[in-house]
């Protein structure tokens, strides 16, 4: 599976977590792709932290409104029924319990649901932007990430070493290898991507995890 296919797999799988009417904030990178895979039978409302709800598709070339960008700085549109507001209200939506789901990328995520994605030691930035607010305020936090870094280092670890963005905030991790839920008892593997073996996932994960019973049964008696 090439990089593009892996990223699309993650985005498609995250999209299945959304329900009709959800207010959703998508982070930069893989999370942004989620918007391309929303099931036809549901409507979700996308929130942009720079101050609107109702993000629409990118404009046609030549039809960009210079004042309508998403939080990643790309030109977008606003759908009929959308609304603009200032940054206070935008973060009030996030913090006040009005945002159903935030989808974010990470540098590291750990077995307790801590995540790190705003800076690395020795560097001044890049800063958290709205990420700390999103992970603290959203009702449900989904991490959408490739399972390992470019160099093959696991991103899912027992304990984050990098400066935290949020403490015990992650609910679900969707990677190109599978889906893990963060539970009070640690990580629970719920799904393997078809074609991925448990051995591969285990080798690329630097945290302990248990396996959901029905998945364990599927994998056979050799597992455990």
């Amino acid at each position, binding site marked *: 599976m090439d990089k593009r296919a892996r990223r699309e797999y993650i985005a498609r799988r995250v999209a299945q977590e959304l329900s009709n009417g959800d207010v959703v904030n998508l982070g930069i990178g893989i999370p942004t792709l989620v918007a391309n895979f929303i099931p036809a039978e549901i409507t979700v409302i996308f929130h*942009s*932290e*720079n*101050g*609107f709800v109702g993000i629409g598709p990118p404009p046609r070339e030549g039809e960009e*409104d*210079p*004042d*309508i*960008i998403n*939080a990643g*700085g790309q030109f977008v549109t*606003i759908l009929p029924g959308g609304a*603009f*507001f*200032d*940054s*206070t209200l*935008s*973060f*009030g939506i*996030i*913090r006040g319990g009005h945002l159903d789901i935030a989808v974010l990328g990470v540098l590291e995520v750990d077995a307790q649901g*801590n995540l790190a994605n*705003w*800076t690395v030691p020795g*560097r*001044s*930035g*890049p*800063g*958290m*932007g*709205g*990420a*700390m*607010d999103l992970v*603290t*305020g959203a009702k449900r936090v989904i991490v959408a990430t490739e399972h390992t870094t470019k160099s093959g280092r696991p991103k899912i670890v027992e304990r984050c070493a990098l*400066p*935290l*963005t*949020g*403490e*015990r905030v992650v609910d679900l991790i969707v990677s190109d290898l599978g889906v893990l839920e963060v539970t009070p008892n640690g990580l629970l593997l719920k799904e393997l991507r078809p074609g991925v073996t448990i051995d591969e996932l285990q080798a690329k994960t630097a945290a302990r995890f248990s396996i959901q019973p029905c998945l364990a049964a599927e994998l056979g008696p050799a597992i455990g």
Partner: protein
Amino acid sequence: MDKVTTAIDAVKRVKQGSTVMIGGFLSVGAPQQLLAALAKQMINELTIICCAADYPQDGVGRLISAGLVKRAILSHSGTNPEIEERAAAGEIEVEFIPQGTLTERIRAAGMGLGGVLISTGLGTAIEEGKRTIEVDGNSFLLEKPLKADVALIKAARSDHTGNLVYHGAARNFNPLMATAADLVIAEVEELVPVGEIDPDQVVTPAIFVDLVVQAKRRR
């Protein structure tokens, strides 16, 4: 009261060492002509308070590129490698604040509050040096008001007294910053006579605005 003036005359009110709030989000809603005029004046040692560092030579990046910034209080710098280079060289002191905490600290200053209680940043480096306050069993950080000597903001439309209307996502931090500085300078794309703007549509009432500068329209 007619508050209309030129960009050059307006930015002369910014003094060396001032704390300046600047509206915009990745340059959208940034007062580009005020920033260009300020950069030309070479008024330095500034502390800037803004959402992000925008881009090199663009938005607040104009002040950073010109070497006028001593300290930056913002939520994100990832789009502007220059600020990171200058921070690494010790030229700029950078303080990162979660974006929603930045909005509330500015709002607190503008609304006359002694601070706000926010849970964002608990368990992270953000809580260092801050008081944790418990309310009904929930923990919050006490975040203090953040105010400025000058706010440079941008609006789509204004009358000659400074009643402001915004467009699209260019609103962002602008209405907040208009409440939290001693001197508020608004750059506007369209200037109309008093009475032309429906009072129902005014987002920032003119009483918050000290000077109005007309910018060239882009659309």
